[in-house]
């Protein structure tokens, strides 16, 4: 037993010796594995990073929310001319009530009404979306006030002229001062300015679909908005004037949990289809989208995995090629060793140790570079990457398996030769 253990150690040393003696072959093999492994790790890390990034974005919309936005329908389908020549479309308060009572699992609903106004403070003038909301909008839409306060129940009750604005808009309107506590004029109100009571670092993600590129917005009490601006929005574009009337611009239904969202989304879809055949709404269900995205990601992962496998396979074939060539080159050596007393097993062990050493070295170096490259990408290109133990282990194991198979097969083949055939090999 101790003899065989001792001999095993010697066999390992012999294999390692083979690695050192055949330098060019060893370096080529290690390079092959290294490139396979690091490219796969980097690919997986970038893929995982993308997936995490977009999932985060959807989670910000609220995973228990069903978001319904009013959208302008195709012109001829619209209920045009119904009122003062205004284009009437979108959700109504009745819709919201109906949705609230008929959809199982609704905890609360938050509504938003948007009008388009012009804001001015001193010499700064900008077009803004004025968003009439109620206090619960903040919590439902996962928003956060960074300074000051949000719209309160009392603001609603008293139809106060107060507002909350995002930091970016505050910077534009009050570049020199702190906007908090200042007054903002919203044109064609009756002149009374809006007092800025709160600043939000970022607006809730659910608002993104309501705002233009600039993201300029003023959040005001819904009651104030209704009283001062009504539900009409007058647009002037290229000399013509169009009037639009939208009762409710956005409704967010907050559901008990994610499974209630899935069930509720079906009900909401049916109700809206029945009541709004003209299609003047857009339903956004983050959980569904996350699910879709996960399925999408799985497909991508399969793709990446296939590409990765192919690159490893190509590397493996390269390694096998080198190994086979070296076996041919070394068949005489094997014949000599067999003539001098090596057993088949000894030859296999020798070649396996070589293969294991080369693949492990290549694999470890691959892991090193494979973690370094995504890090560099993250630092320089700001691409989010994610390295999990699996993204390291899977390519490593694959490389080692490929290396072993490609090392094992030639070893087996070489060992199986009759000593005399190996010796005669030219």
């Amino acid at each position: 037993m101790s003899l065989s253990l001792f001999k095993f150690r010697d066999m390992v040393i012999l294999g390692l010796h083979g690695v050192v003696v055949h330098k060019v072959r060893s370096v080529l093999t290690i390079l092959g594995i290294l490139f396979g492994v690091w490219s796969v790790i980097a690919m997986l890390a970038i893929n995982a990073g993308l997936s995490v990034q977009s999932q985060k974005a959807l989670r910000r919309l609220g995973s228990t929310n069903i978001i319904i936005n009013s959208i302008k329908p195709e012109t001829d389908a619209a209920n045009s001319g119904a009122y003062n020549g205004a284009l009437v479309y979108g959700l109504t308060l009745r819709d919201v009530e109906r949705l609230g009572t008929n959809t199982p699992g609704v905890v609360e609903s938050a509504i938003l009404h948007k009008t388009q106004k012009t804001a001015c403070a001193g010499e700064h003038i900008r077009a803004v979306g004025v968003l009439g909301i109620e206090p619960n909008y903040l919590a439902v839409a996962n928003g956060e006030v960074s300074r000051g306060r949000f719209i309160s129940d009392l603001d609603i009750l008293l139809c106060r002229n107060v507002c909350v604005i995002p930091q970016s808009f505050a910077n534009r309107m009050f570049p020199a001062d702190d906007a908090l506590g200042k007054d903002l004029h919203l044109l064609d109100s009756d002149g009374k300015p809006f007092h800025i009571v709160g600043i939000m670092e970022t607006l809730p993600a659910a608002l993104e679909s309501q705002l233009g590129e600039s993201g300029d917005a003023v959040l005001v009490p819904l009651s104030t908005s209704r009283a001062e601006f009504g539900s009409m929005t007058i647009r002037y574009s290229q000399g013509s004037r169009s009037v639009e009337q939208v009762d409710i611009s956005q409704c967010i239904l907050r559901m008990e949990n994610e499974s209630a969202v899935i069930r509720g989304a079906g009900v909401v879809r049916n109700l809206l289809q029945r009541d709004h055949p003209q299609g003047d709404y857009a339903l956004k269900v983050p959980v569904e989208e996350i699910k879709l995205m996960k399925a999408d990601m799985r497909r991508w992962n399969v793709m990446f995995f296939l590409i990765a496998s192919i690159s490893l396979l190509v590397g493996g074939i390269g390694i096998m090629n080198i190994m086979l060539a070296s076996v041919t080159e070394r068949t005489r050596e094997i014949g000599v060793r067999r003539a001098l007393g090596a057993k088949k097993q000894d030859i296999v062990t020798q070649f396996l140790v070589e293969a294991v050493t080369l693949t492990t070295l290549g694999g470890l170096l691959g892991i090193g570079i494979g973690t370094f490259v995504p890090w560099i990408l993250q630092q320089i290109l700001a691409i989010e990457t994610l390295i999990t133990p699996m993204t390291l282990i899977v390519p490593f194991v694959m490389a080692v398996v490929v290396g072993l198979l490609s090392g094992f097969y030639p070893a087996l083949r070489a060992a199986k030769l009759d000593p005399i055939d190996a010796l005669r090999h030219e």
Partner: protein
Amino acid sequence: MSLVKIDNLWKIYPLLAGDVVALGGVSLEIKAGDYVSIMGQSGSGKSTMLNLLGCLDKPSRGQYWLGDADVATLTDEQLSVVRNERIGFVFQSFNLIPWLTIEENVEVPLFYQGIAPAARRAKSMEMLSLVGLGDRVGHKPNELSGGQRQRAAIARALVNDPLIILADEPTGNLDSATTLEILDLFDELNQNGCTIIMVTHEADVAERTRRVIVLRDGELESDRTQAPQGGKR
């Protein structure tokens, strides 16, 4: 009891063009301590016979006893052990492993016996001194002359204290002066009790041995014992 005994030994290579009978029923015995040369024309089956004796190849038919072992009954592993412990090979083309130093080359048989590195090295050095290469141990085979390489190969054949040395045209690639050197070495080994079986097609090389076996077309043509013409004596 004889060291080697073969009985009606055949080796047939089945080829597409027809079977080639390399060895057609040879029977003979060789005593321990003998010095035998196998002669014959090219293609007469000398190498085939030596390979069979060395357990590198398996006979198509017939029996072969090496010492007390019936070689046909041995497994592949056991054959490896037999080659490892009882047989020393010397080849015409030396067959040293090119990326090992000659000292490492000589160690190889001991390696497969599981002998410790230090002991292997000591024994290897001893054998290399014996063949007069004590000062070239660290050289690679391609840094040595043909005669030196063959002496290294002989050191390797001796390192496991074999029962029998099998040499296939050991002087075939050497000039006449070097040939004499190697033959002197064989004489010396034989005088120390080593059994040597050597294939050669040169009559003056065969002169140096005690027994000359001649093959012709795979069959035994003659088998005579002679007074060896030792170079040093």
